[in-house]
C-alpha cells in the first residue's frame, strides 16, 4: 500500500449492529449452551440501563415537496417510469404515477432524472477517522487490548469531519460508524443521519439499534502478535468464545438479580461492567453483530460460534469470499457487505471478484455495497453500478430496481431500520435523492438530497451545501464549493 496515500486509505476494518425490540427471555446456562425457556417463565425482562447518550435528532420542518415526471427506483425492487413522490412532514406520504399537488407544496419537475431512497452506508469511519487524517484525529481503534466491547464509536465521532459534507453530496443520508478492526471485539457502532450538527447526539438516528463491531482474521492477530496475542486465527476464535462465555455468566448473574429482586428478596446488585453489559445485550439479540470477515471458511466458524452462544450476526463486512459460501449466508440469514472490486491488499482479500455481490444476491442471500472510505462513500451508486454490470456480463438478470437495493433496502435490513428507511414507501422517513440522471452512470450527480423531507443538499444552490467548521477560512474556501467539491 502506498504510504503517500495512507492518510486517505479506506479502513478495511469493520463493525457494528442493531437493536431489536426486546425479544423474549433466553436463559443461558454457564457452559454456553442455550436452553429455550418455556414461555411461562418469561417473567424477567432485561432491565439494562438506558442509552447514556440518547439521540436528540430532530427532523427540520419543511414544506411538502412533490417530485413528479421522474423515474423512481423505490428500493422495493420496483422501477416506476413517469412517477411522482410526495414528501410531507418528514415522511413519504404518497408515491405513484399521479399525485395531486397539495396546497403550498414545492413542485419539482423530475423529467429525465431519477429518484432513489437515500443511500445507506453500513460501513463508514467518518468522524472516527476524519479529514484531516492526522494523529490528533485518529480515534477509530482502541487498540489497547483485543476485546473492548465497552467502547462506543459515537464517543469518537467528530461531527466536523468534512467527509460528512462530501457524503451527503453523494446521496448518502444514513451511515453506520464503526470502530476499526484492530480488535476481536472493537466496540459499539452508531447509526447516524447525515446532517450537519454540533453534537453527535443530534445526528443519532432515532430508534436505530446499536451494533457490535467484531473482526476476523489478519488484523487482530497482526495488531496483537507481539502484544500478548492473539497471534493466530485459532487464538482469534478462542478469544471470541472466551468473551461470550464471560458475558453469558454476566447476563445470568444480572437476570438472577432481577428475578430475586422481583421476588422480593434482599439482594445486592452485581458489579457493573460496561463491556460485558454490551455483550450480554448481544446475547439477547438486542444488539446485532457486524462482523469484519473476509474468508468464507472463517464466516462458517463465526456462524457456529453465534449459534453456540445465541447471538445474531447481521452481516459479514469486507466479505470478499461471500460468493464462495453464498448458500451458507442465505440459510443463516446473514448479509454480505462488500466492495465492488477491491482486492489483493492482503492475502485474505486475494480472492476478490467483481461478481461477488451479484452472485450472492442471485443465490438468494442478502448482499450490499459499503464504502469503508471517505472517498467511496461519495459514490456508492457508481460502485453498485460496477457490481451490477459485472453480474449482468455473466448473464444474471439484474434490473436497476434490484441493484438499487444493494445501497438502500439491504443495508437498512442489516441495520434493522428497514421499517424506517431504505425504501420509498408510504410513512417511511423521507430520505430521498433526486439524481441528475441514471444513478448508475458515472456522469450523474445527486442533485437534491432530502433528509426527513428537508432539503439537506442542493447541487445548484451553495446555500444548501453544508460546510464543516474546519474548512471555514481555509485556503480554497469558496473555490472548493463546499459539499461535493
Amino acid at each position: 500500500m502506498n504510504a503517500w496515500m495512507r492518510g486517505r486509505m479506506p479502513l478495511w476494518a469493520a463493525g457494528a449492529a442493531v437493536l431489536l425490540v426486546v425479544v423474549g427471555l433466553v436463559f443461558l446456562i454457564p457452559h454456553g449452551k442455550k436452553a429455550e425457556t418455556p414461555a411461562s417463565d418469561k417473567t424477567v425482562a432485561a432491565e439494562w440501563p438506558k442509552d447514556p447518550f440518547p439521540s436528540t435528532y430532530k427532523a427540520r420542518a419543511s414544506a411538502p415537496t412533490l417530485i413528479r415526471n421522474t423515474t423512481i427506483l423505490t428500493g422495493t425492487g420496483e422501477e416506476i417510469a413517469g412517477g411522482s413522490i410526495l414528501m410531507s412532514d418528514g415522511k413519504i406520504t404518497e408515491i405513484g404515477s399521479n399525485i395531486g399537488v397539495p396546497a403550498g407544496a414545492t413542485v419539482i419537475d423530475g423529467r429525465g432524472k431519477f429518484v432513489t431512497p437515500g443511500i445507506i452506508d453500513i460501513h463508514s469511519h467518518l468522524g472516527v477517522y476524519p479529514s484531516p487524517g492526522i494523529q490528533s484525529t485518529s480515534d477509530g481503534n482502541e487498540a489497547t487490548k483485543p476485546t473492548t466491547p465497552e467502547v462506543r464509536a459515537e464517543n469518537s465521532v467528530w461531527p466536523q469531519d468534512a467527509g460528512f459534507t462530501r457524503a451527503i453530496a453523494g446521496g448518502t443520508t444514513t451511515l453506520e460508524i464503526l470502530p476499526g478492526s484492530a480488535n476481536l471485539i472493537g466496540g459499539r457502532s452508531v447509526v447516524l443521519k447525515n446532517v450537519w450538527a454540533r453534537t453527535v447526539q443530534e445526528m443519532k438516528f432515532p430508534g436505530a439499534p446499536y451494533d457490535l463491531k467484531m473482526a476476523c482474521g489478519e488484523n487482530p492477530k497482526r495488531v496483537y502478535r507481539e502484544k500478548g496475542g492473539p497471534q493466530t486465527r485459532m487464538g482469534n476464535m478462542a478469544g471470541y468464545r472466551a468473551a461470550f462465555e464471560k458475558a453469558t455468566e454476566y447476563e445470568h448473574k444480572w437476570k438472577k438479580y432481577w428475578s430475586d429482586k422481583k421476588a422480593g428478596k434482599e439482594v445486592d446488585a452485581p458489579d457493573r461492567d460496561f463491556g460485558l453489559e454490551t455483550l450480554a445485550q448481544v446475547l439477547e439479540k438486542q444488539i446485532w453483530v457486524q462482523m469484519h470477515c473476509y474468508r468464507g471458511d472463517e464466516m462458517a466458524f463465526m456462524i457456529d460460534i453465534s449459534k453456540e452462544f445465541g447471538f445474531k450476526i447481521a452481516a459479514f463486512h469486507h466479505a470478499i469470499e461471500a460468493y464462495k459460501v453464498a448458500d451458507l449466508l442465505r440459510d443463516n440469514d446473514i448479509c454480505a457487505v462488500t466492495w465492488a472490486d477491491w482486492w489483493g491488499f492482503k492475502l485474505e482479500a486475494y480472492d476478490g471478484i467483481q461478481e461477488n455481490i451479484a452472485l450472492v444476491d442471485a443465490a438468494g442471500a442478502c448482499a450490499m455495497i459499503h464504502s469503508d472510505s471517505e472517498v467511496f462513500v461519495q459514490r456508492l451508486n457508481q460502485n453498485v453500478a460496477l457490481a451490477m454490470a459485472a453480474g449482468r456480463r455473466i448473464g444474471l438478470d439484474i434490473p436497476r430496481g434490484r441493484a438499487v437495493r444493494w445501497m438502500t433496502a439491504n443495508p437498512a435490513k442489516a441495520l434493522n431500520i428497514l421499517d424506517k428507511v431504505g425504501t420509498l414507501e408510504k410513512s417511511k422517513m423521507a430520505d430521498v435523492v433526486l439524481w441528475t440522471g441514471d444513478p448508475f452512470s458515472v456522469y450523474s450527480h445527486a442533485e437534491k438530497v432530502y433528509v426527513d423531507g428537508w432539503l439537506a443538499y442542493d447541487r445548484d444552490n451553495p446555500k444548501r451545501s453544508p460546510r464543516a467548521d474546519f474548512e471555514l477560512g481555509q485556503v480554497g474556501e469558496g473555490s472548493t464549493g463546499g459539499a461535493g467539491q
Partner: protein
Amino acid sequence: MRTKATLALLAALILAGDAAAQIGGPTGASQGQTAVVPPAAELPANARPSNNMMPLTVPIPTGEPTYLIRGAIVHTMGPQGVIQGADVLIAGGKIAGVGQGIIMPPGAQVIEANGRPVTPGLMASFTQLGILEIDLESTTNDTTADATVATAAFDVTDALNPNSTLIPITRVAGVTRAVVAPETGSSIFLGQAAVIQLGLDPNMVVRPRVGMFVIFDPFRAGGGYDAEDYDSGGSQETASGGGLLSGPVNRPVLWAHFRETIADAREYLARQAAYHAPGGSRDQRTTRIDLDALAPVLRGEEPIVAFVNRASDIRQLLAYTKQQNLKLIIAGGAEAWMVASELAQAQVPVLLDAYTNLPGDFSSLGATLANAARLDKAGVRVAFMPPSNEPSHNARRVTQIAGNAVANGMEYEHALAAITSVPAQIWGIADTYGTLEAGKDADVVLWDGDPLEVTSAPTAVFIKGQKIPMESRQTKLRDRYRDLTRKDMPLGYH
C-alpha cells in the same frame, strides 16, 4: 470529419517497421497479404471522403495474425479525432490502418464492433504492477527502498514479474500500459519508474527510468500518520523519516537534503574519475549508486516526479527545477489548480487522482473535484493515476477516475486523453503508443459501451497486436464458484 477520414486512409499506407518496406505496390503472397482500401465511390455516402481517393492497398506482413475491427466509433486520440463507423486494421503487432471502409485483407479475423467504441489501450500513470502481488506480504512486494541503502538507485525494472496475477486482471479491463513506480518510503528519493506493457510478451519494459520519484511533503515523507491502517500494513506512528532523512521531517530539513543531494550529484558527475581515486572526493552523504542514478536527471533526460500537494510547495519546486534546469512532473497535486497558470507556463504536467476532494491533511486543504477540469482549461497536461487507495490492484479503475473528472467539468476527449495520448507524451512513448494511428503499436480496446462509464467493459483487448485472452485468476475463481449447487464433483475439481 471527412478530411480526417481521408487522412486515416492515407495513414494506412505509412507503416512503420517491417511492413514499411513493402509499401509501393502489389506484393506477392510470399511477402504478405494486402488490404484493399476501396475507392471513394464504394464507400457508403456518409463515409465517403471528400476528395478523390484511389484504390489503396495496405501491405500486411506474413505470418502475423491480422485483425479487422469493423464499424466502430474510433477514438483515435490523434489528429483524426473521433471517427464514426470506422475500422481498425491490426497487423504485425502494429496498427495498419484506421478509417472508414477498410477492405478486409485475406485471412484477417473480423471483429464486428456494431457501432461500439474503440480506444487505444489505456495507460495508468502510477502503479506497482509487476512489482507487487499482495501489499501486506512483504515477500511479494518489491515496491520500496524503505530502510535500504538504495533510494535514487532503486529501479523497478529489477523486479518486474510478467506472471503476476495483477497483469491479466488489469489488462482485461482495457489497461495495456502502466507506469510502474516505487511506493513512498522514508526517504525523499523513492527511485526510478518504468513504463511497461501488459501484453503477452514477457519483456514488459517499454521504457526504463522514465522518472525519478521524489516525495515533497513532510507529512508523507515520514510515511504519513497511519494509525488506523491495519489492513494496509502501515506502521502505527511513523512521524520521523529514515534513509536519507533522519530526525524530524519538515520542509526546511527536506529541502536541505534535497539540495545537498543534487549538489553532490552535480559534483560527482563533473568529477567522476576523481571521485573514485583515493581521496578524490569530499565525503558525500549520498551513496555512489544513488549519485549514479541521478545523472540522467541532472542531464535533463529523466524528469523528477514529485509527490506534492500544497500550492506553496509546488511553486518552490517550479522555481528550483527551473533554476537547476531539471525536468519536473507533479504527482498528487491536490492544490495544483491554484498554480495552474504557472504549471502551464513551465509546461509541467500533473498526475492526478481525480477523486481527491477532502482536506486529508494540512497540505491538501484546497482539494477539489474541479482540479482536473481547472488544470486542463489552463492548458496544463493532466494524466490520471488510478485510485490512490489501490493504485495497482485497481489500476483498472482509471476509467472511473476519468469519468468522474468528466462529471466534474473536464472535456470528455481530454479525460480520455489523460489515460492515453497525454501519458504517452509525458512518459516519452508517444512514438509507439497513445493514439490509434497507422504504424503505432496495436494497443487497441473494443468496448461494450462508453469506456469511461462504470457499467462498461472491454469485449476485446489487443496489446502490441496480440489478442488477449479475456481470462484472469478472477474469472477462474468466478467460474469455479458460480454455481454452488453443482454436485457432480467437489468445486475444487472445477
